[in-house]
């Protein structure tokens, strides 16, 4: 296990300076995510233009992996349709959990920096919390979601 594989420069940068951090008001949809085991709490906000996400922001606090993952997510999903977001989530999830993931990592852009997480199974849910929360927001769910 190499720490530099987990805390890559992109992750450290997005943890120190999270992008799209803050409340989106008004927002077309938002959802709360909570990881009770480590205390991570996130709220993800989205504005939609038809089927497309026109804007995404998040706030909350958590570990470096969960904050960086949320920050990267807000950048990655902007302009994407619901179907594209779902596809992207499947690919990110595969990269997070499978060594032999059949995913073209180059298509993931900066999100590829999360691939080191799979060497640290206890941290996978830190990286995936924001994605579950975004899905809940897109489903217009308001109940808190959990990765437990």
């Amino acid at each position, binding site marked *: *296990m*190499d*720490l530099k594989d*987990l*805390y890559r420069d992109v992750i*450290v940068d997005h*943890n*120190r300076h999270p992008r799209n951090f803050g409340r989106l008001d008004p927002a077309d949809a938002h959802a709360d995510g909570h990881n*009770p*085991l*480590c*205390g*991570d*709490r996130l709220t993800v906000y989205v504005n939609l233009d038809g089927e497309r996400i026109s804007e995404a922001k998040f706030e909350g*606090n*958590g*570990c*470096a*992996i969960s904050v960086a993952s949320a920050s990267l997510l807000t950048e990655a999903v902007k302009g994407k349709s619901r179907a594209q977001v779902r596809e992207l989530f499947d690919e990110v999830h595969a990269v997070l959990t499978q060594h032999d993931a059949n995913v073209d990592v180059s298509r993931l852009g900066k999100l590829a920096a999360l691939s080191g997480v799979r060497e*640290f199974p*206890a*941290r996978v849910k*830190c990286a995936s919390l924001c994605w579950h929360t975004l899905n809940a927001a897109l489903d217009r769910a308001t109940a808190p979601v959990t990765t437990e």
Partner: protein
Amino acid sequence: MSAAIVSSRPRSVDFDVARIRRDFPILDQQVNGKPLVFLDSAASSQRPRTVIEAIDHYYEHDHANVHRGVYTLSQRATDAYEGARETIRGFINARSTREIIYVRGTTEAINLVAQSYARPKLRPGDEILISALEHHANIVPWQLVCEQTGAQLKVIPISQTGEVDFAAFERLIGPRTRLLALAHVSNALGTIVPVERFIARAKEHKVPVLLDGAQAVPHSVVDVQALDCDFYCFSGHKMLGPTGIGVLYGRESLLEAMPPWQGGGDMILTVTFEKTTYNQLPWKFEAGTPHIAGAIGLGAAIRYLQGIGMERIAAYGHELLEYATARLACIPGLRIIGTAPQKAAVVSFTMAGIHPHDIGTILDTEGVAVRTGHHCAMPVMDFFEVPATARASLSFYNTFEEIDRLVAALEHARQLLG
């Protein structure tokens, strides 16, 4: 690390920790290429070889069900199982083995008291008193019994240092208080609660007292008669024993008056479909085939602790705590949560800009195992307005050098993420 700090390390001449460490096979290993530094004994301690061998010996030579057969193996198993009960009695200075109930652990002990002692007594408007230091095992069983009976849970607040507010306790205890349930030592902060004061005042109000001793028994001398508490709960696995075994000490007169908690074999004398008569103490509360090997392992663990001496263990633990506190306090941005004047060897902390979960992962790559999270004490985290902490908990098999390794690993975390 400066030479001045190294030379200021206290040296326990009469505490041969190197020799003690050789008794713990698990400590002698590399984790992620580094020698293991195990600093999570408050969650679960490690076991000396004598405990592992006692369990092996039982399964290899003596196993049969207890209290049943007339054959030799069953008698041997029964003798070992009941012999361990006598060892436990002596260890906490209970009057009689009738007061020593085997349970799965502290959690089950508290649930037993909540359901068998408190539930039949509680009426709507009655009160159970706990403190804001408690971990979930000393909160949720009382919430359940309050829901069942209409009683209320009252919480004694804590101070910013992590001490239970005695003046607030005096205001909260009253004619409706039916039980005071207190941690003897806080798992999340390390606070040693001056329970003697609380017990004395509770006695004036004729309020029985339950102590959660899970974190006290492994590191200090506990005498239930001197404490004059009514119930005392602890777990085997935090004091070098096996998981799945623990103890409820109860004052005999209270246990006698309590109905059984679970029904089944071993807790009965006679059974007909019309009427069952219950076994006497302590077996009235031990339905079904018990964790025989666990009890025997716990007995071996206590004999090991007694061989070293609880006073010496407590004194060495205090030296480790002082050293760890001083060293950690020098790390920029590190905040120690829980600064009561009397503490067990637990240091809970946060670091500016670094989430405890990241601390845990970074330390693990250095071979250093600490607990990170809410320590099953979410209300304590809420009080200090932190989502979680990192916690180094020290046992008598830890060394000053291991604390140095912790400090170096934390410096590494600071360089990486701070």
